[in-house]
């Protein structure tokens, strides 16, 4: 060790050290990663290069060919969701269809949909049972309330994010840039629906269960230390498809469509049925409408 190190020497040494440590872990982090622009500020050609890099990285990591899209929102579309509480039988098929579509960690287990069981005749969110274990559903005397991200028009989670890693897209979907998220979990504290989940460890994803058709703001593989949540299957819905939970529901309780189209399924529901939104009093302006097609 030199006796009297000049300021210049120190800087030179630390630069060398940083370079060495970066090249040592070049598998995971590159200069590009460290100085990546915010997704919303990238130019189209930058996005293209960036997505290609991610595709290569995921393909290498999981041994499968990945597609990472950044399909933009469609014009004059704001998504709304309807859930028929007279029909839902609590079979949890939606929970696992979502898992298969959206690549959440299996262990620690992350589910974007929670199905809550409640006693008939009362509606108390503090007395719900998400861990009901029954041979057959529906069980006598109970009804079921599935909860996922309500894609609020006035989202409290977006308001509190200190780094603006989460925002509301023009089609109403609240998204997260996992590369920008610092994992502070303030958004989780702000969400009154418990819709946001945290990756406590490197997500565990069985190779044969991976969905390789992904969207940057949706179901691409996540990393340790970031928050995730339902995106109305952004990789599907922006291409006109129904979400995975809508497609799997055996009783057809789940409805999805464009709130701005007067002829859509969701507008029919708003026009014809008794509708409510969860915790409306919090002024979140949720776009997830629970309705009753019977009674």
């Amino acid at each position: 060790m030199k006796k009297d190190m000049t300021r210049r020497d120190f800087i030179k040494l630390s630069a060398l050290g940083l370079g060495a440590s970066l090249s040592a872990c070049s598998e995971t982090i590159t200069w590009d990663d460290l100085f990546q622009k915010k997704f919303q500020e990238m130019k189209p050609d930058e996005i293209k290069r960036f997505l290609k890099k991610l595709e290569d990285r995921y393909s290498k990591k999981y041994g499968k060919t990945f597609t990472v899209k950044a399909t933009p929102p469609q014009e004059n579309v704001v998504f709304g969701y309807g859930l028929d509480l007279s029909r839902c039988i609590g079979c949890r098929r939606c929970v696992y269809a979502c898992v298969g579509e959206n690549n959440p960690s299996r262990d620690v287990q992350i589910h974007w949909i929670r199905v809550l069981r409640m006693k008939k005749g009362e509606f108390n969110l503090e007395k719900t049972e998400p861990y009901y274990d029954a041979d057959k559903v529906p069980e006598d005397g109970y009804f079921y309330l599935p909860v996922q991200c309500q894609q609020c028009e006035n989202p409290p989670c977006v308001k509190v994010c200190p780094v603006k890693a989460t925002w509301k897209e023009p089609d109403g979907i609240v998204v997260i840039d996992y590369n920008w998220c610092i994992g502070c979990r303030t958004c989780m504290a702000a969400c009154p629906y418990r819709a946001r989940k945290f990756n406590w460890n490197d997500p565990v994803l069985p190779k044969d269960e991976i969905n390789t058709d992904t969207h940057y703001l949706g179901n691409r593989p996540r990393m340790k230390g970031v928050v995730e949540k339902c995106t109305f299957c952004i990789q599907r819905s922006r291409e006109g498809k129904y979400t995975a939970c809508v497609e799997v529901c055996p009783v057809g309780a789940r409805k999805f469509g464009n709130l701005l189209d007067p002829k859509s399924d969701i507008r029919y529901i708003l026009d014809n049925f008794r509708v409510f939104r969860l915790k409306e009093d919090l002024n979140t302006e949720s776009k997830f409408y629970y309705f009753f097609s019977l009674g």
Partner: protein
Amino acid sequence: MMEGFNKHVGVALLTVLAVMLFPVSALIVSGADMEYSFDSPKVFSSEMFPCSACHAGMKADSTRRTLAYHTEIQLKGHGETRMWCFGCHNAGDRDKLKLAGGEKVDFMELHRLCGQCHENIYKHWRAGIHGKRTGYWDGPKRYFLCTFCHNPHSPRFKPLAPKPVPLRPTETLRGRK
């Protein structure tokens, strides 16, 4: 002459093929501004179809009785005291159904038959609310006919085994350690 003959054989073969395939294929119907497809009723994929294969030579018996064949058919929770076979099935042409006014309808149009009594549900089904839709929220959709989910003779939706209970926080990787 020979060419003509071959062409006819070809058309005939294609028709036979189409008739054979029809039971398992879906019907595509174009609506006002959307394309819908219906899944075929389960009866078409049943080995008992066409009904006329057995019933052609039989006399129609409309007396209420315990069935000697078709023992799996039980009228439960669907007007068991008021309804009997020929309320919906066509006595004259067993491969068809029958509306209340006597009109013969195909099994592919059974929603018209159910809709006679269940008008409100029928209305919601047509609007895309009752029952399941798959496909595109802004384009072609697949509709499922009533009998795809409901047993017509015992229509109440049967209870299902639910998918696994989610792990409690104490059962996850972190909790186990």
